[in-house]
């Protein structure tokens, strides 16, 4: 059986990229919110890390939606998803969440970048300042809503697959949590990588703050991944067959052990612990750690998507 072509395969890699992009968008904006709220306050817009997160979040979500639309067999009919809703469909609910998420996202971006935008306008177009002030008045509500929507979006990427009873490996209650947490860690990695590329200080308080959150997140991800597969194996039947086929010998087994476990989880964890101990953080350390995390999450999405579809109930 070829790792990329088999009879029961319905959704190929573009969907994995879409899931990755939705996750990283949700994760990045969560970290932007945390940075602003707990560390930076009104000056958040000056930080390269917040700028990076605020760039990643909308771009990733647009790119993801673009991929999703192109992947339809009738791309020009995509508007029907927006017009017709089915409350029992995870995809339909997810699209609704995505739409509201984008509104909340831009409203929050307006709150964060109010000062620089209004400075740039310099009194021209009074309507702009009126709108920005009106939005900023509700910043607390918008922030709360945005975090909830971002978490929903992150979990949605997992629910989308876990709703499929056809595939015992995907039809797994741990999957949404696993995707949410790995989405958050990819968001943190994206924020760090983007931040240092945008001339953020690799030893700044933002990096310290994110790393402090990243370590428990990676640990949690390892626990969830373990639970995911332990649960499948203990369930027996086709679930066990699916799990063993996935992490056993073969192409995807290598992707899992070398790509996800070593590069995606162990190495970032080791680097993070090392940086915490050695105190001094450099550009290369931060960039390499973040890249490892991103590669790991992308591989995890592909791994779960492909191996999940290999075994049917």
């Amino acid at each position, binding site marked *: 059986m070829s790792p990329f072509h088999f009879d029961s395969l*319905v959704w190929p890699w573009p969907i994995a990229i879409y899931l990755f992009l939705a996750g990283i968008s949700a994760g990045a904006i969560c970290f932007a919110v945390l940075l602003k709220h707990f560390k930076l306050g009104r000056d958040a817009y000056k930080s390269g890390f917040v700028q990076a997160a605020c760039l990643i979040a909308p771009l990733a979500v647009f790119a993801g939606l673009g991929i999703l639309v192109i992947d*339809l067999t*009738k791309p020009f*009919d995509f508007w*029907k998803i927006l017009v017709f809703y*089915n409350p029992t469909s995870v995809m339909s609910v997810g699209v609704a969440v995505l739409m509201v998420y984008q509104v909340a996202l831009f409203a929050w971006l307006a709150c964060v970048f109010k000062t620089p935008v209004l400075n740039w306008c310099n009194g021209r177009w009074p309507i702009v300042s009126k709108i920005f002030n009106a939005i900023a008045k509700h910043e*607390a509500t918008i922030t709360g809503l945005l975090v909830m929507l971002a978490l929903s979006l992150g979990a949605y990427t997992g629910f989308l697959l876990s709703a*499929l009873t056809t595939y015992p490996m995907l039809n797994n209650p741990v999957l949404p949590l696993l995707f949410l947490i790995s989405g958050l860690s990819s968001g943190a990695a994206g924020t760090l990588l983007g931040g240092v590329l945008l001339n953020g200080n690799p030893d700044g308080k933002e990096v310290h703050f994110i790393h402090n959150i990243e370590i428990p997140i990676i640990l949690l991800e390892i626990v969830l991944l373990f639970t995911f597969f332990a649960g499948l194996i203990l369930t027996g039947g086709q679930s066990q067959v699916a799990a063993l086929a996935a992490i056993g010998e073969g192409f995807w087994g290598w992707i899992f052990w070398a790509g996800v476990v070593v590069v995606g989880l162990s190495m970032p964890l080791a680097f993070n612990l090392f940086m915490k101990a050695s105190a001094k953080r450099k550009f290369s350390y931060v960039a390499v750690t973040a890249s490892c995390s991103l590669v790991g999450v992308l591989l995890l999405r592909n791994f779960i998507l492909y191996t999940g579809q290999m075994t049917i109930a």
Partner: protein
Amino acid sequence: MSNSRRLFLKGACAAVVGASGFTIATAKDQAGSKVEQSCKYALVHDETKCIGCDACSIACREVNQVPEGVSRLEIEREGPFGEYPDQYFRFTRKSCQQCDDTPCVKVCPTGAAYKDPKTGIVCVDEWKCVGCQYCIAACPYQIRFIHPVTKAADKCDFCKETRLKEGLLPACVDACPTKALTFGDISDPESQVVQVLKSAPSYRTKTDLGTRPKVFRIAAKGGEINL
């Protein structure tokens, strides 16, 4: 600040309660409409009578204009079992199982996949379908496909649009030379399909997934016992 946060939390709670209330209310509505259903079509495939001649799948392709490369109905052949010259095969029908609890309808984001309330037949609204292929992934029987011409998801609908409309039996049932297929209203105790089901033990596949399929099978005597 703290006031607005409290207000937000209250609002969020109200929204959640409202949404869940709405879902429960609509769920009840659906349960109510089931009672008014006028009939529920089902099919029995008697594997003891099936000879694997493919007359059903050929007729299906002709009547429903199914292009080559995809199919709404296939007869799968297992075997040969036994020793020459006394060998035999086992034939199973691969087509939409017309689930009563439909995984495909549940996941369809636009409602293009739906269960016809009048007949209980699971159908596809070609126009509403955007081709996300979620239903193809969700079908445990793996019988859905993208129609190469319409680009919409397609599958067996008991010939609802082609033969049932004219008061005829589905093409496969009509074509079967050995009368291995019986079609009819399962809610009518006098119907032939109910009589056939009562006359012999039947089985359905993957019932553990809660799909409650309306395609029944009468098992051939041959075949291996799989543990």
